[in-house]
């Protein structure tokens, strides 16, 4: 179809560039992607360094300064207990970021590999596990998270594993679907006809081709996971007080929203800038990798 352009490109791209540099080049050309990446980086920097520079002690309560509106001293005002909302907003993403980042790595790893393997086997095990996955997905996700966490407790590592596990279930489907595009392709048939082991086929033939899809899917899932974690905090199953956390702050300060709206706006602004940043980045990242949703299937 694109015969004319293809052959021209073949000869021009002989100049070798690593795929990573190529992706970065494409990403740099998208202002939305760069904005997203900047937001994410700023958030990570804030999370990492905020304890050292926030203007007020985020734990310091003050009976005299409760529900104060923004002032020079308290940029976002204070909450019900007189704590500085700005400082707490800055620190509020620390636990969230650590938990979700580790969890997303776990999800990609186990969900991705299992999904690829199921796509390759495509037999009874695949059938069985996929029905199990369907069954899991039919449970409302918040309910599923709540059940696991109320049984296992609210320690950070439990939450990390829980999120890694539940979002891995979503990743299985994505990885399996992406793998099915390649399983019948001739290079996989060729490896099978050579008598290669399943492990080699998964690691050498399939994973490099599915990797991009997994990365993009992971970054999209990250924003969902942030919302999930914040929702749990909002319901009181997240970070134990008094550690500042966006979800918990929104839940508690909601009561004084009419008097001191900034006590809610602070964490909301932080959370939404991060999620918008992740979404902008994910979209641009997908395009940079050539997985543009508007252009159909990844190849």
């Amino acid at each position, binding site marked *: *179809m*694109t*015969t*004319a*352009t*293809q*052959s*021209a490109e*073949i*000869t*021009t*791209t*002989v100049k*070798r560039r690593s795929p990573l540099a190529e992706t970065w080049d494409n990403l740099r*050309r998208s202002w939305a992607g760069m904005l997203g990446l900047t937001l994410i980086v700023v958030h990570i920097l804030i999370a990492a360094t905020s304890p050292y520079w926030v203007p007020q002690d985020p734990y310091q309560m003050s009976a005299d300064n409760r529900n104060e509106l923004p002032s020079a001293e308290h940029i976002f005002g204070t909450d019900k207990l007189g704590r500085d909302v700005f400082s707490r907003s800055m620190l509020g993403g620390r636990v969230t970021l650590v938990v979700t980042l580790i969890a997303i790595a776990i999800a990609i790893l186990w969900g991705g590999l299992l999904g690829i393997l199921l796509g390759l086997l495509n037999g009874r095990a695949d059938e069985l596990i996929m029905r199990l996955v369907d069954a899991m997905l039919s449970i409302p996700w918040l309910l599923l998270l709540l059940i696991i966490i109320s049984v296992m407790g609210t320690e950070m590592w439990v939450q990390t594993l829980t999120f890694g596990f539940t979002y891995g279930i979503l990743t299985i489907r994505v990885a399996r679907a992406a793998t099915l595009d390649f399983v019948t*392709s*001739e*290079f996989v*048939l*060729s*490896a*099978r*006809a*050579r*008598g*290669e082991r399943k492990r*080699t086929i998964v690691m*050498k*033939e399939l994973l*490099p*081709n599915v990797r991009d899809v997994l990365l993009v899917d992971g970054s999209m899932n990250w924003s969902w996971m942030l919302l999930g974690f914040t929702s749990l905090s909002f319901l009181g199953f997240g970070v134990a007080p008094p550690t500042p956390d966006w979800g918990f702050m929104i839940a508690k300060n909601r009561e004084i929203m009419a008097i001191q709206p900034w006590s809610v706006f602070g964490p909301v602004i932080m959370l939404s800038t991060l999620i918008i940043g992740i979404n902008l980045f994910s979209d641009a990242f997908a395009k940079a990798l050539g997985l543009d949703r508007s252009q159909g299937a990844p*190849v």
Partner: protein
Amino acid sequence: MSDCLVDVNDLTIGYYTQRKKLVHVLMGVNLQIKPGETLGLVGESGCGKSTLGQAMMGYLRSGSQVLGGSVFFGEHNVFSLNSKQLESIRGRQIALIPQNAGDSLTPTLRVGKQILEAIELNANLSGSEAKDRMIELLGQVRLPHPEVMGERYPHELSGGQQQRAVIAMALAAEPEMLILDEPTTGLDVTTQAHILNLLRDIVSEMGTAMMYISHDLGVIARVSDRVALMYAGEIIEDTDVVEMFRMPAHPYARGLLESIPRLSLSGIPNSMPGQPPIPGTEPGCSFAPRCKFTSDICISEQPELEAIQGTEHHVRCHNWEQVLATDFSQELEQVFRTISRAAHDESAIELSEVAITYYRPGITDRFRSESEPPATVSDITLSVKRGETLALVGESGSGKTTIVRTLAGLLPAKDGTIKFEDFDLSVEVDKRPREICKDIQLIFQNPDASLNPRQNVAEILDQPLKLYFPKMNRDERRDRQIELLERVRLDGRYRLRYPGQMSGGEKQRVAIARAFAADPEVVLCDEVTSALDVSVQAAVLDLLADLQQERHTTYIFIAHDLAVVKAIADRVAVLYQGRLCELGTVDEIYSPPFHPYTETLLGAILVPDPDHEPQLLASDTPELAPPATGCSFQRRCPYTLGEICEQEIPPWQKTASRGDHSIRCHISIEELKRMYKDKELIRLDHNEHLENEPQIVHANSNVSISSPEADDR
């Protein structure tokens, strides 16, 4: 000028890359098409022929722009029209028929409804008038039972029938011109011959002008009045069809014609060195780096498209006089290289009564009393001798890919035995010992799909080396990679390239190198050249022949192109619906007596000769499943004897007391010989026969038992 329907004037089209570099696609193209004329536009992939075809309809690929020149359709300069005005031309005065008809039909609408839309939009008819016109059109493209066909959905039609429906749609407004972009590529030879006949008839009936774009010179020779040859975005020769094939004046035209395998000549055709440049990058003639007539002027100065001594024969070459000095037909005979092979008498692989099925009963099927459908491949008994090339020949659905995949261990055999060095190959690959896997290697049709895009050549070649020679260390493997690349005539530096950085021919060489990395006894070649351009195909055939001579490798070669088979094979097995029809050496198969199916196939071949006319024996209706009893070819056979063919499996008959040539048919050998002699008497009228074609393609037919081959094209 004014008597031209289409006048392309000095058209230059290009696009900017992401790094703001200008890349030309077309370079100063001049082309005129007169009303009622059929122009064949021919060239290899990437030469810009599709871009030119689309430009004639005022369409540019996104990102491309007109850098100079104009396209006039009648009075209109198509690139100065607004979209409303363009719409009034497209479809009504000029219509496009694309390559893949299945993609251009909407799957959720009935075929008749889609044609009705075209009629209502472009021909201003409505209601019952439009309906009558729709049925008339379906009849005009010779679809049987037009009223019934209109009620079907696209997937209920075969590939050839879909293409006919698309042609009907294009004819709705009786356009003055049709642009056909490779409309028969991917169809079976018999279907292709039928469609081309139809197009010829339509053109002569309706006086429509036609531009036929194709890379296949046999097709071009069949349909065209005039041929324009493109190379690197330029038209380099433009002349009458007979001149083009008998007295080509451009060295590239000669090279291209010499690289096509021919039925009339034996051996492997000549291959051209090098590959086309990006248009507009050569200071002189774009073909100069590959040309054997190159002189100083060719490198410094671009040749113009000039007429040869006042004739209508135009050529873009400084040295055409020198080229024309040698007679082309003599030159052609000299370039074919005959290969000598010493095939052993011992057999490498022996198949006996092999049957293969895709039917996998589900849990509920086991409780039903329905009988199992006939196996996709059945009753295959043949032996492949060491060091020979056996070709499996047949249309799509004939089971050739199925057999090869079974030999490769990707599918188990249902019945029968396949013997290879005392080992039974009827089991799948994970039940075979590693040495057996090593000895049988597979090369696929499409090198784009058979190489992992995420591995470079070194990694690709490393895989079989690591698997079969675990004792090799890194350096040894590296040396072996370079050696393998050199054996397939690639530079050792290709190790670091990724598939996306190589041309189709180079990729296929890497795929061949990967197969030979295992040092195999048997190489299975599944349509290895059909995705390649003709000049590249010749080089790959040449390479395969050389590799075979060095190692006495056995080839099992699948091809649908019978000229390619003639060039490379020693023996041929003709298959229809997974059953053998005829078996013999190349010479025996290509000369009478023929099995009726072999005769049908051979009759439908298009050769690059404008005087050749294909003989259409049987209809082109494909069958999705073999018949339950009797001869597999019974439903399409032009000579069917009736009941005996429907009931009994025909016997093998030897054609001579010596040799292995055998035909599986109820008609006796003497009769087949006699029939061939006075075949003019019994040849059925083509139209009449189509009316009687069997209705097989149906929505409820069991698709799961059809072979995957249909999708492979």
